[in-house]
Every structure is written in C-alpha cells, then in structure tokens.
C-alpha cells in the first residue's frame, strides 16, 4: 500500500484519467483504481468524494443521475471539455516534473553515495 499523503496531489489525475475512458460512478472508479494498481493503492471513500466535489466545483467534471439500480439513482460523473484540457496540461507538466525529479532519484545500490 502506498501512503495516501505521497499520492494525494495526483488523485485528481487518476479520476480524470478514468473518466476520460467513460462516464462512471463512485464505486466503479474506486474498484478500477484498486484493480489497476493490484490493490497497492486503495482510495478512501472520503478522498474520493472530496476529489469529485472539488473537480466538479472547478468545472472539470459534471455529474448526472444514472438509471435506477436497486431502488437507488446513482450519481455518474463525466469529464468536461475543460477537464480534458486540464488533464492534458497536467500530464505534460507531470512528464516534465518526472524527468527533472528522476535526475535526483536513484534506486537500489545506485542511491548509495560512492566517492568518485
């Protein structure tokens, strides 16, 4: 399991990425994240709900009521045009960031400081 603090800044991107594929509802998204990360990242319910609310407030996603299942109407979310643009920008930003940060992250033995 990954610490939720470390990944916090990227929750929005995870949701936007999944909504880019198709409109979906809360639990389906949560299950998809768990599945794709092989249970290494499980998004908490409150995290999920706060991300949905924030994204909707910013106009990156919009919600609508789905058809009734089990006597309840599910809230579905879909990505907006503004959301797609935002996602694109953020992806580019991430790759740039990653490239830079990678230069300073060593893994395994490499990270041990060796005098040259």
């Amino acid at each position, binding site marked *: 399991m990954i610490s939720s603090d470390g990944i916090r800044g990227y929750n929005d991107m995870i949701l936007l990425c999944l909504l880019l594929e198709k409109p979906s509802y809360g*639990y389906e998204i949560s*299950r998809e994240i768990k599945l794709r990360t092989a249970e290494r990242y499980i998004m908490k*319910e*409150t995290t999920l*709900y*706060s991300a949905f*609310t924030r994204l909707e407030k910013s106009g990156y996603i919009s919600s609508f009521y789905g058809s009734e299942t089990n*006597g309840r109407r*599910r809230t579905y979310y879909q990505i907006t045009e503004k959301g797609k643009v935002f996602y694109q920008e953020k992806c580019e930003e991430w790759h740039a960031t990653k490239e830079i940060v990678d230069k300073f992250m060593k893994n395994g033995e490499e990270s041990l400081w060796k005098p040259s």
Partner: protein
Amino acid sequence: METILNYIENLFLSYPNTPNVRKAKEELLALMEDKYHELKSEGKSENEAIGIVISEFGSMDEIAFALDSDKSLHAKPPLSGHSQETIRLNLKQAQEYLDTRISFGIKIAFGVALCVLSPTPAILTESLYDGGFLTASLSELLGAVPLFLMVALAVGIFITNGIAMGKYEDYEKKQILLDAAAQKKLTGEYESWQTAYGRRIAAGVILCIVSLIPILFTDWLLKDTSYAWLEDTTALFLFLCVAIAVFLFITSGMRQSAYETLLGKGKAAQKPFHSKKDRRISLVASIYWPIITALYLGWSFFSMNWGMTWVVWPIAGILFGGICSAISIVSSEKAL
C-alpha cells in the same frame, strides 16, 4: 448494513440537514454500500465486509470543505440535541408523525365527506315519499335527523382532531433533522408515493367530472319522463362521487404535506412557519359546515324547493377544497 448506516449517521451527527450535507451523506453511503455488496459477493462474511468498509472510509477532515458552505450553521457542538430551530427525529418518531398526519387527514376527509353526504338520506326519504311509501312529515323527519347527526359528527371530528394535532405544531415551525435510516426510508417512500399521489388527484378530478354526467344525461335525454327516482339516483351518484373525490383530495394532500414537512421538500421547505395550517383548516371547517347547513336549511324552508337546494352541498364541498388551499397559501405568505 445497519451498522454502516449508523456509522455514517454518527459521523454526521453534528452537521445540519442542508443539501450539501445530505448529498455527501448519500454519496458516501452509496460508495460504502456498493463496496459492502461486492465484498459480500466475494464471499466475505458480514463482519469482515463491514470491517473493511469502515477501515477504508477515511477521515471526515477530507470532506470538510465539501460541507464548508454550511459552516455557519454547524457551530454547535456534536450531540447538543435540541436547538431552537431543529428537531431531530429517528425513524420511529418520523414514522409516528407521518402515521398521525395520515390518520388526521383521513379523519378530516371523513368529516368533510359526511357533510357532503349529509343530504343524501333526505333525498332517499323524499324519493320514498314520492313513491308513496312515506308520509310527507315522516319523510322530512327521517331526512332531516340524519343530516343534523352527520354534520354534528363531522364538526365533532374537526374540533377534536384540530386540538390533537396541536402537539405537532413544532414540527412544522422548526427544521427537521432525520437520521440516516429515516432519511433513506422516507425518501424512498416519498418517491414511490409521488406516483400514487398523482393518480389519486387525477382520480378525484375525473370523479368530479363524471359525477355530473348522469344528471346532464337525464336532463337532456329524458326531459319528459316522470321518473322521479331516476333523478334522485343521479343526485345520489353526484353526492357519492363528490364525497369520494373530496376524500381523495384531502387524504392525499395531507399525506403529501407530511412528507414535505419531514423531508424539507417542496413548499414546506420554503415556509418553515406554516405551523398552524392544520388547525386553521379544522377551525374553518367547524365554522364553515354549520354555516353551509344553516344556509341549506334556510334556503330550503324559505323556498320549499327541496329538489333544487341540495346543489349547495357539492358546491360547498368543492369550495371547501379551495378554502383549504387558500389557507395554505395565506399561512405561507405570512411566514415569508
């Protein structure tokens, strides 16, 4: 399942029943229920499933901003219980209020239906007199006594029930906070009731229209016939239809407004002070119907045109429906 509901309910105890909070509650509950069902279908035991769902729920701090627009309202500490503006109800209390309001509606509707039907014995006895089965004075007596009894019974119902509803005055003045179980159950009930409500109002309107058909029919087509019993039968039919229609309007209207009060929906949401509406309606009914009765008797004895004067009743019945609506509107305007 109950455990999850209670868990959410406790977490939200200190938050007011505002749209944002309700939405958060509903969405979180839906997320948890979906997860719970999936875990169960994977073969987890009830306890295991609940344990996982609750451990993965997260922290309320995270969604605080989503409820933030309501901050000013939840300045009170958790479990403070009764504030001046809110009443907290659990499922049992909410159900009790709903049941009382429904049975109140039925009683008032029954009283009004009695008033509408009160001249029918007179029509019957007159018909028997026309047929030569009764003497004139006996037929008048047998018609008048039930009329008075029915109106008296109805007035009694209006007054006693108006007083009985007094203890729920608070419910309509203050904001009602339902717990999660009550909110969920009543929202479901309310939604399925909407269809029935629409159907009943439509049925009432259709009945009002249908009630006139036989009278028009006999008047037009059977102008020359001397079948007095036929006219009496059409009059009885009209009274019966109007009585049923009025019964439908009042019972479904009362039930609808009870749901609206509990769930803070519709008109009730905008007029937290429509408080004394029910009692006003009883009060008006207890004055209105005796006046109508007096009017009916006065006009009838003065003109001795008993075959005509009964039109007072269906008109009065429909007018009463109008007065009820007017009272609702006036009470809500005063509140604003």
